[in-house]
């Protein structure tokens, strides 16, 4: 089966080609079938591959298709690597991906058949790129997928291209990603310089030779991490993600919650050896992750756009994942990626269903009491909220708790902050839930009039995801439960190489129980607090003040960037264009020409038409030349 792995990315590509080229004459139904079908097929293949991979003692296999780049001593094959990590991500991507495709067939149904096909083409292309990203057997392959997903996110954010603001958001996303990509590229170059290769296996074999804490490794790790920052929306490159909500909601679910944004985590997990050998950088990763988690969560507290809340929550959750990576809990990070994929996709799709029902309305202050119109959405959304809040028994609980535990082991302060972040999460999620689904409806009458539960194509994925969000956590039970940590066992080959360099503090069971109890208790308190505050929310319309205002305006980060980066750049380029180019260089060039003309005008004055003067000039010339040649 492994040798057929190329089919996995190829099928979505096929879908992309068919839908893309046939967009003008394919009927919507067919388009939808092709779009979803290819991804579903890919999912099936991935499953088969997964079962093959999860056999104990499976060694990573590299499927090399052809020689992509070879210059001098550098050889970069176009190859796929199948191992536990990539197989797992294959499942997540194709699984969640196919669900969202199905969802989209109904969600995007109002679109004209042309743009409907365009939508699915883009979506397939995204899946293709994402698969390349996780399947790639070397960093260049990863970079190909890396940029590919960036492109797709650009295309999908700007899907409704008539709205110039959406395009601006798309550009912002792409450019911010590019900033990260530059870091990633430089990292790759450094790898080439050091190891003369970018293939994972070779690189990871050679890395330990450099020894722990070598400067080169720090540089590589940092540069790669910059790439991750861009892609996974970490400080300082996170501001594009909330804006990316301009895209259709399923896109937000797939790209900006479940899959693409986790590419950064995938990359770090993939290069875990490098990071384990560069502890300082790991610390930076942890800190960045933590700060991002807190900042995003704090912003999410005051957002009123349903998707914006989810977006910031995504950023915050990604922060947790990086925290995990930073503290060396790679498994936990991947675990959280998985669970987060489930419940965040669920939440987004749920919000999509709501928006769908509200006729495009996204402001939660205009909603309320929706539960009586759309029960399924309500239930699933609630499950999602519980999962993300970390109520015991749901997937979020296990993954997040594992992260917290490791944070404790790593540094108590970090644990405390992480916990605060978790509580904020619980608060804003339930604020969102209560404002949206409880209380009385605050929208207009015609909105109220055609409120309805969404069709099956929408609700079905919701249900599936809800189930997953509940049971997803049981693949990684804490050892205090005595049950085996399936995921950890499954992934152990991947993270084995870095094991010797990690200093894992094992917590005593008592302590771990205590921590669990503490977090759970506090979370429940938070939820109740939110309930009391928002269950009968009425839009007071009171202007926020002080810290609340700051939060509502996202700490004014966008304004800050505008002031310190965008404006100076504009000023600089204007200066180049108007001063240096026109006045400086070109002025100089033209100056030569003018100088010649001027000189001509002066010299010609000697030609004054009087022969007496001519002879005189000749004699003077003779004298001068004589003096030069005889006496000099």
């Amino acid at each position, binding site marked *: 089966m492994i040798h057929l792995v190329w089919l996995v990315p190829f099928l979505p590509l096929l879908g992309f080609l068919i839908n893309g080229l046939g967009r003008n004459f394919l009927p919507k139904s067919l388009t939808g079938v092709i779009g979803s079908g290819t991804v579903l097929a890919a999912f099936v293949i991935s499953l088969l591959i997964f079962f093959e991979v999860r056999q104990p003692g499976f060694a990573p296999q590299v499927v090399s298709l052809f020689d992509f780049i070879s210059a001098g001593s550098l050889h970069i094959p176009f190859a796929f690597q199948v191992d536990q990590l990539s197989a797992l991500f294959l499942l997540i991507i194709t699984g969640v991906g196919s669900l969202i495709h199905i969802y989209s067939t109904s969600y995007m149904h109002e679109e004209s058949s042309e743009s409907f096909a365009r939508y699915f083409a883009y979506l397939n292309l995204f899946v293709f790129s994402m698969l390349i990203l996780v399947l790639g057997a070397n960093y260049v392959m990863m970079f190909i997928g890396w940029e590919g997903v960036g492109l797709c996110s650009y295309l999908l954010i700007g899907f409704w291209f008539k709205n110039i603001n959406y395009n601006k958001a798309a550009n912002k996303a792409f450019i911010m990603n590019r900033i990260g990509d530059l870091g990633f590229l430089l990292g790759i170059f450094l790898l080439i310089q050091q190891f003369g290769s970018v293939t994972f296996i070779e690189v990871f074999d050679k890395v330990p030779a450099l020894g722990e804490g070598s400067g080169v490794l720090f540089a590589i790790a940092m540069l790669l991490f910059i790439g991750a920052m861009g892609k996974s929306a970490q400080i300082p490159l996170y501001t594009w993600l909330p804006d990316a909500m301009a895209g259709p909601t399923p896109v937000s679910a797939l790209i900006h919650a479940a899959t693409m944004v986790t590419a950064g985590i995938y990359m770090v997990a993939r290069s875990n050896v490098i990071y384990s050998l560069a502890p300082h950088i790991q610390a930076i990763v942890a800190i960045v992750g933590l700060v991002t988690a807190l900042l995003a969560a704090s912003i999410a507290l005051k957002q009123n756009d349903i998707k914006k809340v989810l977006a910031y929550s995504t950023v915050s959750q990604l922060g947790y994942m990086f925290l995990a990576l930073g503290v060396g809990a790679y498994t936990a990070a991947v675990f959280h990626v998985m669970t987060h994929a489930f419940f965040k996709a669920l939440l987004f799709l749920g919000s999509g269903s709501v928006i769908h029902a509200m006729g495009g309305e996204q402001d939660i202050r205009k909603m309320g009491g929706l539960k009586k119109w759309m029960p399924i959405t309500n239930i699933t959304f609630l499950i999602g909220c519980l999962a993300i809040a970390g109520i015991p028994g749901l997937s979020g609980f296990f993954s997040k708790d594992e992260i917290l535990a490791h944070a404790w082991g790593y540094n108590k302060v970090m644990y405390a902050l992480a916990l605060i972040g978790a509580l904020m999460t619980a608060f804003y999620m339930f604020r969102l839930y209560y404002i949206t689904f409880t209380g009385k409806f605050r929208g207009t009458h015609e909105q109220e009039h055609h409120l309805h539960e969404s069709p099956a194509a929408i609700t079905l994925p919701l249900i599936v995801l809800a189930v997953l969000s509940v049971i997803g956590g049981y693949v990684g039970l804490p050892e205090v439960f005595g049950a085996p940590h399936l995921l950890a066992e499954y992934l152990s080959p991947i993270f084995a190489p870095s094991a010797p360099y990690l200093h894992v503090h094992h917590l005593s069971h008592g302590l771990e129980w205590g921590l669990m109890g503490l977090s759970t208790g506090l979370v429940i308190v938070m939820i109740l607090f939110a309930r009391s505050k928002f269950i009968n929310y009425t839009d007071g319309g009171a202007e926020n003040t002080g810290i609340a205002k700051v939060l509502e305006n996202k700490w004014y980060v966008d304004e800050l960037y505008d002031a310190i980066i965008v404006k100076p750049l504009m000023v600089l380029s204007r200066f180049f264009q108007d001063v240096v180019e026109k006045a400086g260089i070109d002025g100089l060039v033209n100056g030569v020409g003018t100088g010649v003309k001027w000189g001509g005008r002066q010299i010609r004055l000697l030609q*004054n*038409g*009087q*022969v007496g003067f001519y*002879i005189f000039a000749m*004699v003077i010339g003779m004298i001068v030349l004589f003096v030069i040649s005889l006496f000099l």
Partner: protein
Amino acid sequence: MPVQYYIFLSIALFCIGIMGVLMRRNAIIIFMCIELMLNAVNLLLVAFSKMWVDAGRIDAASAQLFVFFVMVVAAAEVSVGLAIIVMMYRNTHSVDINILSRLKN
């Protein structure tokens, strides 16, 4: 007698001729000064021929023949030159060289 004397004499005449060319504006006088320059050269050539004869060169006659040819050319030049000056005088009723300065720059 050192030949330098003759060299200096003819150079003096030569330069006086140049001065004349530079100082006067009457075309005919200028032309005369040019003739003076030629004669200075002739004198120098004759002196040199004498010098080389005394130094025992046989073909020293060449210098005197050169002078002869210079005279020939001078005569030819004079005929043409005066014709030109006359033509100019016809058109402008002046022999002032600076009258004619239409062509300039």
